[in-house]
């Protein structure tokens, strides 16, 4: 190994071996390899599923939100049945779960969490952020949501009701944020660009047009 800039504390660790696999990683690998060996599922099916999951990103959710903002009838269908409304836009579901879209209003702010593990609307938003899967977020979301949101920079007024939605079994959720003011003349595409992943988890509000310009 060539000596590298020693001021970088991490430089020496880049060629270190990964830590040994955990108990559950060994179990997962064993089960997966057995399933392939016994021809229950194919290696290509596993690879394909990973490819499908990695193809899902928050851009899909933003598209749904923008459509709901411009089309009241679509919004009504989306709130009535999230699955079939998404399927209208060509977004299919690979998990056998129901999809519930929760509308934020002037009086209600919805927040998503999975206290047991990491349930998340993967079909619509892709893989969850690391903090969503970690215990501090999972515990504090249900115990002190206002303090947690404030740490993310979102202060919810006292007269707004917070609903913490704990996804434990067969429901997956997405938050439909409020449409920002000053977007009356925006196209659907421009509206979608204001909707971030965290807005659809209920961590922040949708960006305002000014905020978006500042971040360019």
């Amino acid at each position, binding site marked *: 190994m060539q000596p590298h800039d020693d001021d970088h504390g991490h430089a020496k660790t880049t060629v270190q071996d990964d830590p040994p696999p955990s108990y559950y990683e060994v179990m997962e690998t064993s089960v997966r390899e057995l399933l392939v060996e016994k021809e229950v599922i194919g290696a290509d099916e596993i690879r394909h599923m990973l490819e499908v999951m990695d193809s899902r990103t928050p851009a899909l959710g933003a598209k749904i939100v923008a459509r709901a903002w411009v089309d009241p009838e679509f919004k009504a269908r989306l*709130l009535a*049945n999230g699955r079939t409304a998404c399927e209208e836009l060509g977004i299919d579901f690979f998990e056998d779960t129901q999809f519930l879209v929760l509308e934020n209003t002037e009086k209600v702010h919805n927040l998503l969490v999975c206290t047991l593990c990491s349930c998340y609307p993967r079909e619509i938003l892709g893989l969850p952020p690391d903090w969503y899967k970690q215990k501090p977020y999972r515990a504090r979301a*249900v115990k002190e949501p206002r303090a947690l949101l404030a740490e993310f920079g979102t202060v919810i007024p006292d007269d707004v009701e917070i609903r913490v939605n704990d996804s434990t079994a*067969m429901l997956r959720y997405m938050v439909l944020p409020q449409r920002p003011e000053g977007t009356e003349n925006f196209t659907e595409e421009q509206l979608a660009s204001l909707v971030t992943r965290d807005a659809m988890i209920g961590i922040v509000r949708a960006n305002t047009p000014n905020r978006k310009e500042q971040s360019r």
Partner: protein
Amino acid sequence: MPQTARRKTKPSIHVVHAIGEEPIFKAGDSVRISVRYPVGHYRVPTYIRGKRGRVEAVIEPRAVNNEEEGFGRNAGLKRHYYRIAIPLTELWPKYSGSPYDGLRIEVFETWLERN
């Protein structure tokens, strides 16, 4: 929540429903989450056990009990999940936020008691 409040079309003739086919609880019912600590795979977090709440909606369609499914038994009797509303002040007596703040969580029928 229109999705889950969806009513089945009333049949024109009398039919006998299978066990578990009709939801036992309805929106508005007061319920208590059971306090049990069985060994196995459970999707009912401990922090809601013994707490009181209200049925916000019946979740359709019926589903296999995932406590059974966790052990590979994924066929047979299906029952409903319910979307349950529990005030955060009920979960955490020292909760200092708005008294209207609440939890929404889906709970399988076998874990609900009439309150």
